[in-house]
């Protein structure tokens, strides 16, 4: 087990280097010269060649690529992502709080998603083909075909405007969580519930369940064994779900004016504030990779078969 963890963590390092390098050169993709963007953003009236050259030097753009990457990497590790082109504030002072807000939303949503999909997945698997199973699957199928912002708009209109029960936007009280969390949960629970259900079903059809039943083991205990085996698959899927949800709160945050990463990123994209976009991409890509490894390790800890193979 220790060896496995070591191996996985060892494999992380090169992947992180490649990802960070890609994120770094992402900046070069832009058709606009960052120096120009900065000058525009600062409202400089007449942009001359010399001014651009001077700004480029100021931004350190005239140095070799690898040297710049190295400096950028060192700075990034210390959470120094440079200054926003638009406001001039350090990127982390904007990104940090936004990340925290998005994390809060993500964690609350993920907990609900995990709980809901396990409960529904298990119930539907145990009643395969009956009305509960059919209706839950039908509804979840419809909900996953629904655009999140559309659902969000409908819910805002109904619960916040028509019934005036909940706040339409912002992040002021616990009530503010209800609608955004509901939209995220509805969008994702349908997907993950199916993972739990199918994993349960394939386990229920395994010979060991038949043998257990043939040995007179009560159904309830068999169900617990099946659940344990099914959740092994689900754990790795859930582990990956968290960064996916983290990355896809963009739309929901935008609708509910949640002061999180998504809102910040969309504003930054529209304002061409590259350092923030770059930092956002880096933070999420790293989170994705870390969660991926974490869930693999957790899975190996739960599953003796995997542990042996690796």
């Amino acid at each position, binding site marked *: 087990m220790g060896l496995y963890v070591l191996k996985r963590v060892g494999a992380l390092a090169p992947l992180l280097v490649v990802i960070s390098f890609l994120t770094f050169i992402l900046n070069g993709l832009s058709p606009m010269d960052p120096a120009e963007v900065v000058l525009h953003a600062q409202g400089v009236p007449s942009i001359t060649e010399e001014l651009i050259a001077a700004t480029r030097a100021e931004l350190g753009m005239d140095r070799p690529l690898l040297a710049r990457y190295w400096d950028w990497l060192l700075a990034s590790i210390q959470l120094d992502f440079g200054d926003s082109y638009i406001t001039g504030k350090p990127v982390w002072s904007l990104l940090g709080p936004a990340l925290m807000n998005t994390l809060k939303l993500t964690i609350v949503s993920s907990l609900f998603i995990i709980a809901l999909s396990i409960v529904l997945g298990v119930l539907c698997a145990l009643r395969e*083909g009956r009305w509960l199973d059919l209706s839950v699957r039908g509804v979840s199928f419809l909900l996953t075909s629904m655009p999140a912002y559309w659902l969000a708009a409908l819910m805002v209109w109904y619960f916040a405007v028509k019934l005036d029960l909940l706040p339409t936007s912002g992040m002021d009280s616990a009530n503010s969580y209800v609608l955004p969390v509901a939209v995220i949960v509805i969008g994702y629970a349908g997907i993950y519930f199916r993972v739990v259900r199918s994993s349960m079903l394939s386990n229920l059809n395994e010979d060991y369940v*038949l043998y257990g*039943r043939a*040995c*007179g*083991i009560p159904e309830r205990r068999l169900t617990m064994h099946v659940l344990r085996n099914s959740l092994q698959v689900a754990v790795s899927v859930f582990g990956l779900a968290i960064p996916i949800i983290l990355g896809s709160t963009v739309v929901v945050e935008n609708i509910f004016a949640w002061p999180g990463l998504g809102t910040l990123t969309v504003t930054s994209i529209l304002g061409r504030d590259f350092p923030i976009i770059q930092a956002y991409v880096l933070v999420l890509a790293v989170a994705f990779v870390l969660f991926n490894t974490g869930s693999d390790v957790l899975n190996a800890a739960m599953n*003796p*078969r995997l542990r042996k193979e690796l």
Partner: protein
Amino acid sequence: MSLLEVEHLRIWDGGSGAVLVPDSSFRLSQGECLAIVGESGSGKSLTCKALMRLNRPGIRQTGRVALNGVDLTGLSDKEMRPYRGKRMCMIMQNGMRAFDPSRPVGAYLLEALSLHGDWSPSEMVAGLSAAMMSVGLSDPSAVMKRYPHELSGGMLQRTMIALAIVLEPDVIIADEPTTALDAVTQYEVVEQFVALRGRIGSAIVFVSHDLGVVRRIADEVLVMKDGVIVEQGGTDAIFGGASHPYTRYLVSSKEALRSRYLQLMGGTRIAEG
């Protein structure tokens, strides 16, 4: 009175309505070994599972299955539970898949045993160890600590037999217990079954499509084709002079294979397996 009586067993798929086994009747006496032979898909496995009411919910059955005169088909699930394991014991085809993959084999065996008797943990371990030794598992405590994937199919097959020995059921139902094994292990497991009969006096329902194995172990043979019992009789009668063409076909193809084999071996008599 027979130990196990099956009358007008009918099995069908509740979803599509397709009849899988139209009407089967047979009986099994104390200590007897009944082999059910036939090609795959002939309803052997369904019949076996129907005896213990283990077919999946979509598969429906009617008819009488009586053990010592008690009709099992009328029992509730709760009343059925003591029959499963204690009175009727199943040995699965694929040992590798018959045990919960995320628990050590021993934990599983002890759970099953604890449901069927008032044994203390140490008594259960002692009983299991003795049974495992007797089926050729020389280091029981090591086997019990292992996870299923760390053991071979043959070892797991013997483990199931060992559990049956401890439980001393009236009937053992073995569903193709040798199919997933290599030839050598197959031979050893069959020998364990032969020894098992002598040891605990259980009746055995032995499902197989391997006529060589059947000839070695069975008293009575029941031949199934497309869900129908086409022939039924003593082993010698079936192998000697079957009346139904299908049985003759099964036996002759087996014989043809063997004589071809003998011919290749230069006519040397090989011990029958």
